[in-house]
């Protein structure tokens, strides 16, 4: 009785896209090896014929070399044991030979297999033609050609699931590549084609003389695109909406509630000079809505749009190669830029993505570093909002400091953390033009997860802050810790509340600085200390899971010491 379908294949062959096509469950896919680091579950059919579908991380062979690959092999082993699973082995048709290596290993296992020959269109495009029927009769299992991104062949794949068979292709292990060579000779014909423009462009972005200037230029361009879209949305859409449509509604409610009631404090907050200030009023329906929707959402949209284009184009692994040497300085290799990039959006997926790194040492360094010195896009948006009025004079000190902290802490961790850091070893995928509908779906998934997971926390945070103020708890904490923060960071007692709230939501914590009338220097120090001091609760939970309790304690101690040291230093030198 078949209860499960396990999708297996080399990294970056389109497993996650096929998974989404089969189950309708949306998962993040991208054009670099190692997008999926944990298995994902969905189902097809209904009632008695309902079958679970599991998307496993990619693996090149059944001898795993990274935690993500270990997850895949463990899933396979369970499938063999439970005898209720069909394996759908997804093959990249543009790389038949290398992909068959895993297929032949799978055929030795006692488990039924169906092969999906994916990226069929791309293979044709570059002049590779594969005789799927011949491959099917050689391997003795169903072979279906698919183009997952457009959905071509998915129906056939589903109908062929019933014909899945345990492999009957016999060979000796030592002869595996020899066998693969023989199979490939029989089923594949490659027509020689001239270098495409894509390939020429690809070569330019990877040669150091041309690649490094291109990388620098693209990173600047990306930054300006993010800032342009983010600021544009705020100036022309969210700010006008809040100021001219939402503010009058709030004023009505304010009059109804009466300015002195507790309910007014919680829902509307303080009136500033008799009117609502969305940055400073601090009620649930004023600042509580403005922070996530007015200030942060535009940047979430801008950042994830750019990140998704970057991911799907295939540029990230090339950037990883160019930056490989720089990352050696902090005990990592080039591919570590993938988790670092993701962390700029949100540290939670950033920490998860450290699973593509091979050793425990690298994962500890990468996870600790990103929680110390990479603010999530929500926090960055709020910092832009707060310090943007000072221009580069206000913003540069924050981000330059964080970058220097990243470099120095990374260097120290490289020297102090024992263990190995292997070298970069990665496949470089072909450039692909991002598929627009898929890109939009991915963007929506990320925005949706922000709306679902972050917005309630912000609203809850505003409620808690107001209640704690009303109870006098924040002032009490201010009096207790305040002398230390004043002496060390030059921050007033009132800033303690913001520093503590950083544990719940960093964007909200930065927002809490707005009503305090801080100087530019104080805002810079508070922004840096808030980024470095302690991860927000969501990041804390995922760090705890990925690093274990001792790892988390070590990382936490490093964060706290670094924050005190850097905050204090900034207070002295600025």
């Amino acid at each position: 009785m078949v209860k499960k379908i396990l999708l297996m294949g080399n990294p970056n062959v389109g497993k996650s896209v096929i998974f989404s096509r089969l189950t309708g469950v949306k998962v993040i896919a991208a054009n670099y090896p190692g997008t999926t680091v944990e298995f994902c579950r969905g189902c097809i059919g209904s009632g008695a014929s309902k079958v679970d579908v599991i998307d496993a991380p990619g693996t090149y062979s059944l001898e795993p070399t990274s935690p993500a690959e270990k997850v895949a092999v463990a899933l396979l082993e369970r499938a063999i044991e439970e005898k209720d699973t069909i394996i759908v082995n997804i093959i990249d048709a543009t790389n038949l030979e290398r992909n068959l290596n895993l297929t032949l290993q799978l055929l030795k296992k006692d488990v039924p297999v169906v092969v999906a020959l994916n990226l069929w269109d791309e293979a044709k495009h570059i002049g590779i033609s594969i005789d799927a029927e011949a491959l099917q009769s050689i391997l003795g299992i169903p072979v279906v050609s698919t183009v997952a991104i457009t959905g071509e062949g998915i129906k056939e794949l589903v109908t062929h699931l019933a014909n899945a068979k345990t492999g009957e292709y016999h060979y000796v292990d030592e002869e595996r590549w020899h066998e693969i060579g023989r199979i490939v000779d029989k089923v594949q014909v490659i027509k020689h084609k001239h270098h495409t423009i894509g390939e020429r462009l690809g070569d330019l972005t990877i040669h150091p003389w041309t690649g490094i200037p291109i990388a620098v230029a693209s990173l600047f361009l990306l930054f300006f695109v993010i800032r342009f879209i983010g600021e544009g949305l705020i100036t022309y859409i969210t700010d006008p909406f809040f100021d001219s449509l939402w503010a009058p509604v709030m004023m009505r409610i304010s009059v109804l509630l009466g300015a002195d009631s507790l309910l007014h404090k919680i829902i509307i907050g303080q009136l500033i000079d008799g009117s609502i200030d969305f940055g400073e009023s601090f009620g649930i329906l004023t600042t509580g809505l403005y922070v996530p929707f007015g200030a942060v959402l535009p940047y979430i949209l801008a950042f994830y749009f750019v990140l998704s284009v970057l991911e799907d184009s295939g540029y990230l692994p090339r950037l990883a190669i160019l930056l490989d040497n720089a990352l050696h300085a902090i005990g990592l290799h080039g591919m570590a830029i993938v988790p670092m990039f993701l962390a700029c959006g949100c540290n939670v997926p950033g920490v998860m993505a450290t699973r593509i790194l091979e050793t425990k040492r690298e994962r500890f360094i990468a996870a600790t570093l990103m929680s110390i010195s990479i603010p999530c896009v929500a926090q960055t948006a709020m910092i832009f909002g707060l310090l943007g009025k000072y221009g580069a004079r206000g913003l540069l000190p924050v981000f330059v400091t964080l970058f220097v902290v990243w470099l120095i802490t990374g260097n120290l961790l490289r020297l102090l953390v024992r263990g190995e850091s292997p070298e970069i070893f990665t496949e470089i995928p072909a450039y692909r033009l991002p598929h627009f509908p898929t890109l939009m779906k991915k963007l929506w998934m990320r925005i949706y997860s922000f709306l679902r997971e972050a917005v309630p926390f912000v609203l809850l945070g505003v409620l808690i802050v107001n209640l704690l103020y009303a109870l006098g708890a924040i002032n009490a904490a201010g009096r207790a810790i305040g002398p230390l923060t004043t002496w060390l960071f030059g921050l007033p007692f009132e800033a303690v509340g913001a520093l503590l709230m950083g544990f719940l939501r960093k964007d909200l914590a930065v927002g809490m600085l707005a009503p305090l009338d801080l100087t530019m220097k104080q805002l810079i120090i508070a922004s840096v200390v808030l980024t470095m001091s302690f991860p927000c609760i969501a990041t804390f939970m995922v760090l705890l899971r990925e690093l274990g309790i001792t790892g988390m304690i070590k990382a936490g101690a490093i964060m706290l010491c670094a924050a005190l040291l850097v905050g204090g230093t900034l207070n002295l030198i600025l």
Partner: protein
Amino acid sequence: MGRISLTEMEEGSEGSVTSIEGGHGLRARLDAMGIRPGVNITKVSGQFMRGPIIVRVGTTQIAIGFGMATRIIVEV
């Protein structure tokens, strides 16, 4: 004609892998990506300061750390 490591190969030149000077772990990792004695390999590019070496094997481009690349011996 001679045997040199991947790092010494000239950019754009092609050779045939003759041996991999390493333990089982290294050989298995390279093998899984299709790099093993007997295959043809083209060096696409190197990087500054002993950075990774980029090669093409069949239709796949692969980046290999410098240290690893010194252990891949090629006949050109």
